[in-house]
């Protein structure tokens, strides 16, 4: 090294940095592809449906000439589904690039209003007073449903049964120990300890919070006075965490903790779920089947919004969350409009295949609703 001129030595060093950077890029790429093994199974599943020629199959040839980059943000509830679908779709349409960052339903809606994303994920509707903040009509595309679990961590207690009033009392801090009479009455045979209850909830603005609190409004009766919203004024003594994953972690680590978590995150953290009493009086454990039953029982409005919370039916899991992809009907960029059309068409055709949704811990929406939503894709226009 002694006789190498100074300049070329510095070039060597820069060359070295380049190698390191290139190495990082390669590893990142490798990580990206190895992380997607789960969805490559789903791809096979999706493509077999396409081959079987069902009426709602995705035809990539129709969208081949679209070149667009789409950005989305919002609901962490639908994030795993979106990422799984994007992974499959980007392989079929290599010129279409889609990204989806989480951030919560609240963030998705405000990002869409600010025009920084092309689509938003949300589990709750836009509040009427905020509609004026959006530049054009916002279309709701229902995509999947999934249960919101009431998960808990309590030594030696499985198969806990809870109903609306009991949940309302626990989450509003009126019941503070596990052996309280209101829990005992529902679980006469369980060995409930005298331990204090730690309530875990979302710290960020969340559609999961909206839907869970909607259930408490519907089924909690006079015991629930905190209303329903993206953020709730939780009582003292409760604990907040960020995102569904954060709440799952909050429950998983605490003996005596209870909280509401989406199905996928609760399963990933191997949490124990409670069975919840539905409007027909039966106790149902959180499952995709129970979520499908709830979605099928809900009445759909003209704008394709519907409310499966506390729906009637023996098999219905009562805390079932809907979720929508929100898109502005008028798009500035024609390519983006076409790209959104391709993305939504995929979600509402091959994306509804139950082997694909099951693999990601979601249930498809009812067929009739998917057909209506598919027809709505044509309403996205470029200005």
């Amino acid at each position, binding site marked *: *090294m002694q006789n*190498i*001129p100074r*300049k*070329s030595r510095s*070039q*060597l060093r820069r*060359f070295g940095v380049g190698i390191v950077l290139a190495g990082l890029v390669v590893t990142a790429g490798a990580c990206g592809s190895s992380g997607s093994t789960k969805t490559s199974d789903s791809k096979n599943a999706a493509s077999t449906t396409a081959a079987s020629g069902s009426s709602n199959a995705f035809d990539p040839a129709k969208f081949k000439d679209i070149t667009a980059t789409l950005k989305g943000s919002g609901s962490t509830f639908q994030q795993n589904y979106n990422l799984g679908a994007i992974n499959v779709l980007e392989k079929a349409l290599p010129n279409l690039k889609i990204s989806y960052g989480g*951030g*919560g*339903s*609240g*963030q998705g*809606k*405000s990002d869409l*209003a600010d025009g920084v994303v092309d689509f938003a994920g949300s589990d709750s509707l*836009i*509040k009427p*007073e*905020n509609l004026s*903040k959006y530049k054009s009509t916002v279309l709701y595309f229902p995509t999947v449903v999934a249960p919101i679990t009431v998960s808990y961590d309590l030594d030696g207690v499985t198969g806990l049964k809870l109903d609306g009033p009991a949940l309302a009392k626990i989450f509003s801090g009126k019941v503070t120990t596990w052996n309280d009479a209101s829990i005992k009455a529902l679980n006469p045979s369980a060995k409930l300890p005298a*331990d*204090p209850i*730690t309530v875990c909830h979302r*710290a*960020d*603005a969340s559609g999961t919070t909206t839907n869970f609190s909607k259930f408490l409004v519907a089924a909690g009766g006079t015991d629930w006075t*905190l*209303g329903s*919203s*993206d*953020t*709730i*004024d*939780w009582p*003292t*003594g*409760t*604990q*907040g*965490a*960020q995102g569904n994953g954060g709440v799952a*972690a*909050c429950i998983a*680590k*605490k003996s*005596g903790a209870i909280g509401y978590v989406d199905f996928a995150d609760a399963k990933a953290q191997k949490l124990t779920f409670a069975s919840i009493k539905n409007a027909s009086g039966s106790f149902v454990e959180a499952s995709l089947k129970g979520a499908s039953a709830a979605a099928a029982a809900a009445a759909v409005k003209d704008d394709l919004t519907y409310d499966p919370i506390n729906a009637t039916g023996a098999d219905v899991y009562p805390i079932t969350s809907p979720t929508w992809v929100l898109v502005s009907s008028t798009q500035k960029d024609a390519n983006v409009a076409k790209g959104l059309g391709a993305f939504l068409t995929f979600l509402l055709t091959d994306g509804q295949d139950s082997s694909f949704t099951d693999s990601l811990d979601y249930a498809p929406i009812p067929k009739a609703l998917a057909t209506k939503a598919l027809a709505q894709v044509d309403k996205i226009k470029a200005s």
Partner: protein
Amino acid sequence: MTTVRTPSPSVLPAHRTDGRNRARSGRRLDRAFSGLTLTAGLTILATLVGVVLATATFAWPAFRAGGIGFFTGTTWSSQTNTFGALPMIYGTVVTAVIAIILAVPASLGVALFLTEVCPRRLRGPIVALIDLLAAIPSVVFGLVGVLAFHNVFQTVFRAITGPKANGSSLLTAGIILAFMIIPIITSIPREGIATVPGHHREASYALGATRWEVLRTAILPAGSGGITGAVMLGLGRALGETIAVALVVGSAIQITPDITQPGTTMAEIIANRFNGEGMGIERNALMGLGVVLFMITIAVNVAARVVVNRAQRRNAGT
């Protein structure tokens, strides 16, 4: 090893100019340089003023709606649009104070060890390690706190204060913050102590003082200004830390004297709540918290500067 050779630069311009040219270009460079530094200085000032103006303007509706209640109210409700910042101010101050109480003795110990006790050969590597601690991103501290230490903390807290104690709490946040500010509080006194004139030390030893007496009478008084300043800087850092605290503090809007319970800080709630949909006045109120935090941090930093300056003047006088 193969070497890459590039042709060396053929022209070296510095040798061509004659003296007069050099003087002229030197003057021009002088002017350009002073202009450049002036711009840099003004940019800092403009940024600071801009931040204050922008945040205060944005926060104004919340200040106006809440009045003095914004600073003294204990309810923060996006459902009823009532915003009182006291639980956040309380949590911010409590976590920062816990951090200082834990970090200051540890940092001073490290600083004194490095300057007085540590073998010279080990000093370099240890200093490098401490500086490395300062380079760890705060989110990593937060994740380590959540993933690795949550259960440990919870078990220990519960053993001491009963089954209600929580692994995500004001105390947890304080402990994590303490680790984050130890490098800051260590480095400044270390340099201060290292500059204590050798003859002070030797004179003390010559009078028969023990090592402890030398530390107490000759070294600590001379380094006290630096130590106070460092503590203030650490405090500033602890007050403003966001993501590590958001991960471990437990995000509960409450004022509780039990530090093993979840709480909140100003930076935490800004990070967690700023994502809401068209939140209207809550967004202004969060910005208001930003202004309050900014004011507190500025006050702490100004106090640090005053203390350090006074100590330096006193040291210079003796």
